[in-house]
């Protein structure tokens, strides 16, 4: 009597089961079929209802409306726009305005957040308490509340144009907005830009050279005086030779309003202020957590090697802290961008306000417009997180982690 070798079970069926049903196997497959059936039924119901509802309201679906004339004005545009332009143009205007407020908000929030974090970490008891109070107070008030507060209480309480608050008779703040000198292009602009570009390229080259020197010969160079000299000297020389690149048109009060200068609309001021102050309180906590996460011994070890405090911070502490800081910081940037949609509450012409607001109420194309709006924000989120994860990937590579 011999023992026959048993055949292995047929693998393809097992593999198919694993791929289709996961660990749950056949149960999983049945579950998925039910799930798909439920989704299909749900989808059918929605599509059928949308069809009948749209037919009852006499709305044709599709993106054809994008070519129609918008016929409304927008009070701040980065590209030329008039009421006779199409809705596509409105969409672009809205996206650009959203981007503008997001970028400026991100820059301001980062600077402010960093300052508050350092203040909270400072050994000075009073300063750290002031910073802590700021964080607690701002974080615990709704953003929309803060935006409306700046817009309806603070900026609305400003005096009219005739009684504007002025700084050195060039900047004016009143209830119509913030009026600043407007740069006007002069013939010297081109040489100035070229000089600036050359200076920047030279600085990058210098830094590269200095690094090489350090790594190859172990010889640390002090390059910042040269960098400063290049960055200031070259543009100044170009200005001396070719004349000023821009002149500033100073606003003048004429009658009831200002002539000349550029006006920054109050909606923008309120939105940027509130967004950056709000996000700064979150960024401050992110940065503080990151810096605290670096062990004290790292600083001490660096100091005991004879490095200066600044060098230890720059080369040892900050890179390690950044690794902890970057992912949540990315989240805060994304939040700021998404929160800029609250502009619709005060009428700053961002994407949601001009497109999902005005355009939708004019055309009634709810599905297409909300779809596009969501798509734009999704794309913005994905791009921002891609950029930030690229940066943290590079940082991680540099740290050898």
């Amino acid at each position: 009597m011999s023992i026959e070798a048993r055949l292995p079970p047929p693998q393809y069926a097992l593999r198919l089961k694993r791929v289709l049903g996961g660990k749950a196997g056949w149960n999983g497959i049945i579950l998925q079929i039910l799930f798909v059936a439920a989704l299909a039924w749900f989808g059918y119901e929605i599509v059928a209802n949308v069809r009948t509802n749209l037919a009852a309201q006499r709305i044709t679906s599709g993106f054809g409306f994008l070519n129609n004339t918008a016929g409304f004005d927008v009070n701040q545009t980065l590209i030329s726009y008039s009421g006779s332009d199409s809705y596509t143009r409105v969409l672009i205007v809205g996206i650009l305005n959203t981007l503008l407020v997001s970028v400026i908000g991100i820059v301001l929030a980062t600077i402010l957040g960093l300052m508050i974090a350092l203040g909270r970490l400072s050994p000075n008891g009073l300063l750290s308490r002031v910073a802590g109070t700021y964080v607690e107070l701002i974080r615990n008030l709704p953003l929309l509340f803060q935006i409306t507060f700046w817009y309806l209480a603070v900026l609305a309480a400003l005096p009219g144009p005739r009684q504007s608050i002025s700084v050195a008779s060039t900047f004016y703040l009143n209830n119509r907005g913030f009026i600043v000198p407007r740069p006007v292009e002069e013939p010297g602009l081109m040489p100035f830009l070229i000089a600036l570009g050359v200076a920047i390229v030279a600085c990058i080259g210098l830094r590269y050279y200095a690094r090489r020197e350090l790594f190859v010969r172990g010889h640390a160079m002090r390059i910042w005086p040269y960098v400063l000299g290049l960055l200031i000297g070259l543009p100044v020389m170009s200005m001396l030779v070719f004349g000023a690149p821009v002149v500033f048109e100073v606003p003048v009060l004429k009658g009831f309003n200002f002539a000349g200068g550029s006006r920054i609309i109050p909606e923008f001021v309120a939105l940027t202020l509130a967004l950056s102050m709000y996000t700064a309180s979150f960024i401050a906590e992110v940065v503080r957590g990151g810096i605290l996460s670096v062990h004290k011994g790292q600083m001490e070890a660096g100091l005991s090697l004879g490095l200066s405090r600044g060098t230890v911070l720059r080369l040892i502490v900050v890179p390690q802290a950044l690794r902890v800081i970057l992912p949540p910081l990315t989240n805060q940037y994304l939040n700021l961008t998404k929160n800029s949609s609250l502009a619709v509450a005060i009428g700053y012409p961002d994407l949601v306000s001009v497109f999902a607001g005005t355009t939708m109420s004019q055309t009634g194309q709810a599905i297409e417009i909300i779809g596009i709006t969501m798509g734009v924000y999704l794309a913005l989120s994905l791009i921002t997180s891609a950029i930030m994860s690229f940066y943290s990937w590079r940082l991680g590579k540099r740290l050898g982690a």
Partner: protein
Amino acid sequence: MTDITASNFIRQDLAGERPAPIKTTGFVGFVRTQLLNSPTNVLLTLLSALLIWFTVIPALQFLLVDAVWVGKDREACLAQNAGHPVGACWPYITAKFNQLMYGFYPEAERWRVDLTYVLSVVLLVPLLIPRLPAKGLNAGIFFFALPVVAFFLLYGGGLEGFGVSWTASALSVFTDSIDTAGNALVRAGANVPVVGMLFWLLGKLVVLIGTVASLVIWPLLWIRDQLQASHQPVWIDLALTAIVVTGLVFFLGGGARALRTVVGTAATFVGIAIVIAIMGLDRHGLAIVDTRLWGGMLVTLVVSVIGIVASMPIGIALALGRRSTIPLIRFFSIAFIELVRGVPLITVLFFATYMLPLFLPGNMRIDGLVRALVGVALFSGAYMAEVIRGGLQAIPRGQGEAASALGLSWWKTTSFIVLPQALRHVIPGIVNSFISLFKDTSLVSIVALFDLLGSLKASLADPVWATPTTAFTGFAFTGMIYFAFCFGMSRYSLLVERRLNAHRRN
């Protein structure tokens, strides 16, 4: 050689008194060690003091010193009438207090709102104090019974039927819809050659399923019609439902062994009967107050509480779905979470307000507040899912494996072993989500609901109270309310965190 005597080692004269050590505790110590110990610190101290001087002092002056406390209209809050620079205009808050709290809720019915608040606080406080017993019962009443009672208190209206009728109606809608879907498939397949045949067959199959289902539920519909024709539809239906559900629990739970559960189920139905009797739900209940009249703090609390309660199950389901091994379910959960998290809440609210009505059958109208609630629940559910997923990831594999080794099913492993630990891990994160949800409720004012912020904005437009400081007063008052809620929640989460981490302290 000299003798060394003891006197060489003993001092002959008293040592001088040393100065007392520098005090490092208390206020003086604080000033010495943290404020003035180096030139930089002195500078920073000065800077902070200036900051405080220019923010806190004017704020206090505005809110208390220069404030006007009594008055009938804007005249009292004008500088020329008050005789001094005017700060906060508190009479405006007194006049608008009811609007900020209730919106346009009819004055005679406001006791209902107050009663709801009282009930919630009475149930919530014991839930929040860790030492008190009967957490399960308390939580059950708070999360399941209270919302229903609150709905009938706040909105009003009564019942036409109970479990049996509802089940019958829902099932009949469902089978009708299956029938139409099947017929649509048949029609779609009629003109297409090869694939159409498949569609036709599938459609016929769906129609068949629908027909069989409608035959199966036909007795149920008959019972419903009989119930509706009787004198006391609600009570008979309730009794019927109670008998059926208790019987089901008895048989599914394993007969007499499940006596506790059976008694609990029966007790629940008795409780429901008492509520129905007290509130007169079988006699059309309280007068209906349309949600368009709701406003102020009421809407803020309703939206945030329902958002919080609804976001938990949605979040748990999505988090489990995201970790599921079944490909389609995992894919769907990931897509849903990422889609919702990638867009601003305001677009989700727009979606709920403008697109949701298009999705529903034409004859079905959905209330504006409910639409906003759907949006808020979906949005916070997606965020909650990520928080809970963090907790699920923190549970060691061994826990699930041990449960499998004991022979527990997936459902039992998840609900008795994995989820309780995971949720306990992420309580701080959950509370953080609650705080941001509470703050986000202010966004419903954009879709034309008058929550606290919306009511404030509306009250600012009133010319009777238009003074230079009205807006600041209003924002100061509402700001304090928002701050009190959010700050209270964050402090409570810290407390819970400390308590949960008690074992890690050493």
